[in-house]
């Protein structure tokens, strides 16, 4: 993605930059395309990859929302743990 940030590149040029096989590179590119992070454009006989940073931002947005949901739950849990640690030890049945 870093390489593509500056310019669209054709598939061979991308593959030359990696130590992995051409099919493995294609597989990675396919995944990134499915995620909306890359688009492939046909130009004459060459296929060029272009980075789509809007897609990346979308991913980051929903992840951040989801992370916040958990962060808020865990903040509540912190309070509960503080309370449990402060309380004298009770048998489980007395904890209702």
């Amino acid at each position: 993605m870093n390489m593509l940030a500056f310019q669209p590149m054709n598939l061979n040029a991308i593959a030359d930059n990696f130590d992995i096989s051409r099919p493995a590179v294609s597989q990675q590119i396919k995944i990134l395309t499915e995620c909306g992070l890359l688009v492939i454009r046909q130009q004459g006989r060459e296929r060029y990859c272009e980075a789509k940073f809007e897609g990346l931002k979308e991913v980051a947005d929903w992840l951040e929302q989801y992370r916040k949901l958990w962060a808020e739950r865990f903040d509540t849990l912190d309070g509960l743990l503080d309370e449990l640690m402060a309380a004298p030890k009770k048998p489980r049945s007395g904890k209702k």
Partner: protein
Amino acid sequence: MTTKNETILTAEPGKQELFITREFNAPRELVFRTFSEPELVQRWLGPCNMTTKIEKMEPEGGAWRFIHTDEHGNAFGFHGVTHESTAPERIIRTFEFEGLPEKGHVVLECVTFEALPNSRTKLVIQSVFRSVADRDGMVNSGMEHGARDSYAKMDELFEELLQKA
């Protein structure tokens, strides 16, 4: 309270899993209990604009189900089975949101509790989805009826708990 512990979410593009990591200033025996005892789970799991009911939470090998209800009476159910519950180190269970258009979008959750020095605990939740689309869809639905103005309600809960203690 001391400095806040950070909640870290890791979800690589194109993968079927995600990780949630968080440390707690409490021993893992206690953190484990807040994940395994229904009356404790109920106190922190729910989104703040909803009431949460733990309908059942059976021991290892048994089923669990909980329901979030919003102020309009819309109910969101979740259920699954506890595959393993080994105190105080880990819980492995399945998880399914009942509000999806079709059944079967089940998630495998592995929750591990690692003891850290000074009676602290590192929690890692690994969620493995059936597909990348499932994972991304789940995260999206989680945020829709998930975390809205939660803090106020949590403060109330803390106060109530502190008074009881």
